[in-house]
């Protein structure tokens, strides 16, 4: 009985996503076409990637509020380098991502080394980054023009006009999933998040793992920043605003625990982000007032948190009923 219950809960995201798609397909106007789905995912790629990034931080128990700002900073940096210094696109992107990694490292310096509260450190970091980025852009939109338009417009005809950018998105998801699932680093990450004290006691260098997790988070958010400026074709000063909250909500929606130690990139966080994205695109497709969208998102987050608490409770309950059943054969032996 116990395992069955958990199974249903762990598939809840697929079910929710399916329900959302069906509801909007029925109620909406041409919602379930390939073109509109591609558009939703493509425009939502910054959110999906930031959600992947913040998952790394959440898994070690750090609620990183600077993720949106890191993406923004990386986008601004890459955009300015292209626009003002005429730097090659690839190199500009690399610089943006490196900036993300660096900010992640600064965060970890405060959080891990100086033992400051992660939420407040990253909140402060968010304000600082946004302020600096605005100074550099003079609070004006930076247009990127030809630099990225080719990239944005490229489509794969064979796949019904799938934007080329989506390959990049899929690659990011695969790499993040791989790192978390198949490398020693990923396993250590989960161990540290699950119980830092135990992890330290059995010999895992918890400080190093936390630092690496925050730097990975920064780097992935830097990638999100690059996607953001490509999909938009310009750098706007209000970009990626409040994405930290959307991303954390999406990750939790996808089953990542705010306490760390439990969660996944795919299916977890990616599905969580997709749910939020399709809710807003579906609602605008139906012509619902744009002011209602955050309201519905809020409701969805409440429901997600309730499902999460159900999941946690069923996990924390020590399976007492199986104690007798399982050890009975042992007792039978003299």
């Amino acid at each position, binding site marked *: 009985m116990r395992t069955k219950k958990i199974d249903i809960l762990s598939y809840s995201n697929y079910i929710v996503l399916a329900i959302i798609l069906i509801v909007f397909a029925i109620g909406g106007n041409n919602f379930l076409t390939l073109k509109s789905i591609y558009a939703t995912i493509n425009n939502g790629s910054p959110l999906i990637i930031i959600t992947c990034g913040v998952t790394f931080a959440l898994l070690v128990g750090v609620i990183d509020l600077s993720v949106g700002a890191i993406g923004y900073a990386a986008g601004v940096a890459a955009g300015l380098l292209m626009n003002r210094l005429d730097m090659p696109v690839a190199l500009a992107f690399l610089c943006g991502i490196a900036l993300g990694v660096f900010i992640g490292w600064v965060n970890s310096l405060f959080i891990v080394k100086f033992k400051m509260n992660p939420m407040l450190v990253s909140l402060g970091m968010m304000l600082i980054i946004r302020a600096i980025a605005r100074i550099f852009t003079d609070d004006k939109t930076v247009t990127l023009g030809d630099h990225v338009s080719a990239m944005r417009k490229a489509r794969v005809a064979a796949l019904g006009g799938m934007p080329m950018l989506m390959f990049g998105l899929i690659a990011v998801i695969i790499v993040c999933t791989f790192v978390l699932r198949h*490398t*020693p680093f990923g396993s250590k990450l989960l161990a540290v998040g699950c119980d830092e004290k135990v992890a330290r006691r059995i010999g895992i260098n918890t400080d190093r793992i936390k630092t690496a997790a925050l730097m990975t988070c920064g780097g992935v958010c830097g990638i999100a920043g690059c996607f953001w400026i490509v999909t938009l074709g310009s750098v706007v000063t209000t970009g990626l605003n409040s994405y930290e909250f959307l991303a954390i909500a999406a990750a939790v929606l996808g089953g990542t625990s705010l306490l760390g130690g439990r969660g996944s990139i795919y299916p977890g966080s990616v599905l969580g982000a997709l749910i939020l994205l399709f809710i807003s695109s579906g609602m605008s497709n139906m012509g619902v007032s744009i002011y209602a969208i955050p309201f519905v998102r809020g409701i969805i987050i409440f429901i997600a948190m309730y499902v999460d608490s159900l999941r946690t409770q069923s996990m924390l309950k020590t399976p007492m009923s199986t104690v007798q059943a399982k*050890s009975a054969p042992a007792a039978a032996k003299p």
Partner: protein
Amino acid sequence: MEKIQSLELKNISKSFPGVKALSDVSFSAYPGKVCGIVGVNGAGKSTMMNILGGLLQPDEGGKILINGREVMIENPKAATELGIAFIQQEIQVFDTMHVYENVLAADFDKWRKGKNSLVLDRKAMKKEVQKHLDALGSNIDVDAPVYSLTVGEKQLLQIARALSEGGQILLFDEPTSSLSDNEIARLFEIINKLKAQGYIIFYISHFLDEIFSLCDNVIVLRDGKKTGDALISDIDKEKLVGMMLGHMVEGNARSGVRAQSEVVLKAEHISGVRLPKDISFELHKGEILGVWGLLGSGRSELFNAMLGIDKMMGGRIYYRENGRLEEISQKKLYPHIGYLTEGRHYDGLFLDMSIKSNITSSDIGRFASKFLGTLNTKKEAVESRSLMKQVNVKATDENMIVSKLSGGNQQKVIIAKWFLKDPDILFMDEPTKGVDIGAKAEIQNLIFEKSEKGMSFVIISSELEEIMSLCDRIIVVYEGRLVGEVSKADFSKDSLMKGIVSQEEKHAD
């Protein structure tokens, strides 16, 4: 790693500021033997094990030899490398991860597919873990998530972890404290198996029948000194208890028997989730009742179940109010009692708050105005000052932060807190634990004074001397059951131990 043939400890001492936790302890252990380590709380068992596990360093002059060569165990990692594995009392697992990951968590990097590969070889990991689990005779699924395991199975993971790290010397610290009877039987099977395979095993326990059924020899510690080292076949329980407790001065600080006064509290058939089991007792007005038992006997659990901290599975509580003894719910009883818990830092004090706030916290409503509920801080200060004086808290003033006080003074603040509430009954769990001798005497005198004025006390203490000098009557609990009641006239080490020893013997039969 070469096979360990012998482990010797020579003249190991360990001093902490103000306390000598171990002095000059020597013993040796050999493969294929289970060596029991016993002693009452604070005897130095844990210090001993922490030294072996690399968590503490012994004082100058002590030596640890493996196969006759002196070794330094500077940290837990060094201990692991030497083949020493510590299976701790608190279960150390990662609940959200899989079984095989838990077993091999100490060194994930070792399990990459190749030297330069980034990928974990999960197949090899599972195979390795399966090997160890098979060796332990367990049928746990290596792929199962750990949260779905029972406590006993989680403990088995720790043993498997110790084996996978190449442990040859296994230290078990109170491994049965949270296991069911079946699981204990299972664990013993495994330990015997490991013994037959030639591991060196140390087994710390408070349960004497476990020591007798499992160990080959036993080392007894008391006050940091080795007071016994014998083959298990050469001694019996009474002898062992004698070594653990030593000879005591049986002082009597209080005369007069209070048992004749009216009953203020009556507990009938109190049972908790696991402990206690069916305990009944009566408490008289102004009486000091002792609850004595070994650690893990369900002493604190009795308090927690009675007072509604934990779930009470069965039983009734009667309380005298307005001259009549009537059944009362735990919730309604709580306003009439005080509960000094065992963990001073954990749930006894608001460490970052002032002495004043701590003292008045037990009855803060008294200082609130009737109309708006605003606090009269002046009155708070005056009353806390007078209580501080009464219990003799040494501090600059009532605004001092509690965490800056010494242990004894902190304990007095807790007592002042409950005296402010002035309940009819005060439950105390280890009221003088970790307190210096001076403060201990003061606390005992405060208890006497208050009981003269009609306050009743129920006191848990691990120290026989203390409980015997303090109490009018002592009930003895063992494995959650009430096994004896001793009145003041009959107080002696033997009369208290008798209940426990007879139970142990019943077990053995």
